[in-house]
């Protein structure tokens, strides 16, 4: 079976399977928490027009940070690192690796299935957030263009992080999740604020560089842009694309050559 056919079979099977999994339901719920907060803020805003904090402010100052610096990387970590590890833990790896299919099709098929699913989870949450902010002004919605740009960049962030964590999951088991968490909350959160070239060693730098530009007077995304010395959109896109391809190629290489020992092998 060639790579393309095998990829299709793996993708379809795991997309359907993951759609009804407990993990997906949990992430759906988590991604709706920001929506809930916004709904409450919006209700307060509508019932008390003189309130200091509007839903639009919460959305622009907090929710996007929640999504881009927390929810997306965490979702990518748990889905990405499980691509190989869940097969080892459930001992189902044997079904896949004793099939006459290229091993890279297993990595790539599952990766695309999980990215798509993660994208649906995140984007539905974001869309509902956006809808909540604009619920009383549907005719003249604010930040429409920025919102759609953000959806695209958010999806790109998901792809980049998940590729990285797929590689991490192919190399190591439980330690991969710990290392991933350290990466998200340590490296990414600190190094992105370093001046000069250093910040370019984070994924978040390239993601933030692609976020829609807004003037300083506008609160939208201002916090996200803090201390950012942005690279150009084209450069960011090229770097992220190369990063994703390299991470997936490395993950496929590791998976092809590494021996995964199930607990009861003797």
């Amino acid at each position, binding site marked *: *079976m060639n790579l393309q*056919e*095998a990829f299709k*079979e*793996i993708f379809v*099977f795991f997309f359907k*399977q993951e759609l*009804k*999994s407990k993990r997906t339901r949990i992430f759906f719920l988590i991604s709706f928490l920001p929506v809930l907060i916004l709904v409450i803020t919006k209700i307060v805003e509508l019932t008390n027009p003189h309130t200091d904090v509007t839903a639009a402010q919460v959305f622009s100052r907090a929710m996007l940070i929640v999504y881009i610096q927390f929810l997306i990387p965490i979702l990518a970590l748990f889905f990405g690192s499980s691509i190989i590890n869940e097969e080892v833990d*459930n*001992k*189902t790896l*044997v*079904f*896949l*690796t*004793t*099939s*006459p*299919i*290229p*091993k890279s099709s297993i990595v790539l098929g599952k990766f695309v299935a999980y990215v798509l699913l993660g994208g649906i989870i995140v984007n539905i949450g974001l869309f509902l957030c956006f809808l909540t902010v604009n619920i009383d002004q549907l005719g003249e919605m604010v930040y429409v263009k920025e919102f759609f740009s953000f959806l695209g960049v958010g999806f790109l962030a998901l792809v980049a992080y998940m590729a990285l964590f797929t590689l991490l999951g192919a190399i190591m088991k439980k330690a991969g999740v710990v290392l991933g968490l350290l990466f998200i909350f340590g490296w990414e959160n600190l190094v992105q604020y370093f001046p000069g070239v250093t910040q370019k060693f984070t994924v978040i730098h390239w993601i933030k560089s692609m976020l829609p530009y807004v003037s300083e007077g506008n609160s939208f995304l201002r916090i996200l842009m803090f201390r950012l010395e942005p690279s150009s959109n084209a450069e960011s896109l090229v770097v992220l694309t190369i990063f994703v391809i390299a991470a997936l190629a490395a993950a496929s290489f590791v998976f*092809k*050559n590494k*021996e*995964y*020992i*199930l607990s*009861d*092998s*003797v």
Partner: protein
Amino acid sequence: MKAVINAENLSKWYGNVLGISEISLEITPGIKGLLGPNGAGKSTFLKILCGQLKPNIGTITIFGETVFSNQALFSRIGFCPEHECYYRGNTGWQQVMFMAKLHGFNIKEAAEKTEAAIDKVGLLESKDKLIREYSLGMRQRLKFATAIVHEPEILLLDEPLRGIDPLWRVKIVQLIKEYAKADKTIIVASHILPEIEIMTDDIILIHQGKVFAQGDIHYIRDLMDKHPHMISVESPQNRELAAMMIDKEYITTFQFHPENNKVTFNTNERDRFFDLLNRLIVEHDLEIEEIFSPDDNLQAVFDYLVGK
């Protein structure tokens, strides 16, 4: 007959733990029983055969080709692992169908193959039930269906009868024998001698990672019959029983356990011992609560053979 599997000086370690050591074998079509106690290295050997593990030393070839990461070869091999493994959220049909598709069959062919495999293991009626709702025996049969769905030339079965009810044991054994008649190569690993015995006479004895003996099963049977057996009899008349047996030369020792009315005999002729015991029970109308052989297992035979 030409060997389809060639193992030369095969060794595998898990860190400091020995999996198998210096195994050299040539396996021809037919059923080969891989017999050994738990932890002997049977599963390691099968996993090397199906490309799950890489040997540290030595080579393994199937149909003249190396195995690890040789994905094209896997269309000719079916593997039924020992451990429980299934996609929890799927039905039996979905899992077997998925495997059929991964073997390159189109949807129509895959559906036909899936139906045939599931039918062979008697799961057609429960094919749409979620696997997590299956009993242990049903899950075991599903694993077997998964291994045979693409009609492989080589079938590797690790403890295939575990958890299967007696009726289906007979049917699965029959299936395995039918495969052998079709000139396929089947390796069945088990730690239970009678399980292997009903499938084949041709066995490989494996112990502590090494091939200890191979050949006809009667050789093993003879070894089992000659090795000292421990037999415990629980009876209120255990002392009378012992008194009646004490003069027999094939009873080497006996020991009383007054706390539970038990006497334990050691004999080196098990068949003669049981003939006598049965006769005495009938003739003297002895009340017997339990007859038990504490060491009547493969481990005891191996321990005896390796001189422990």
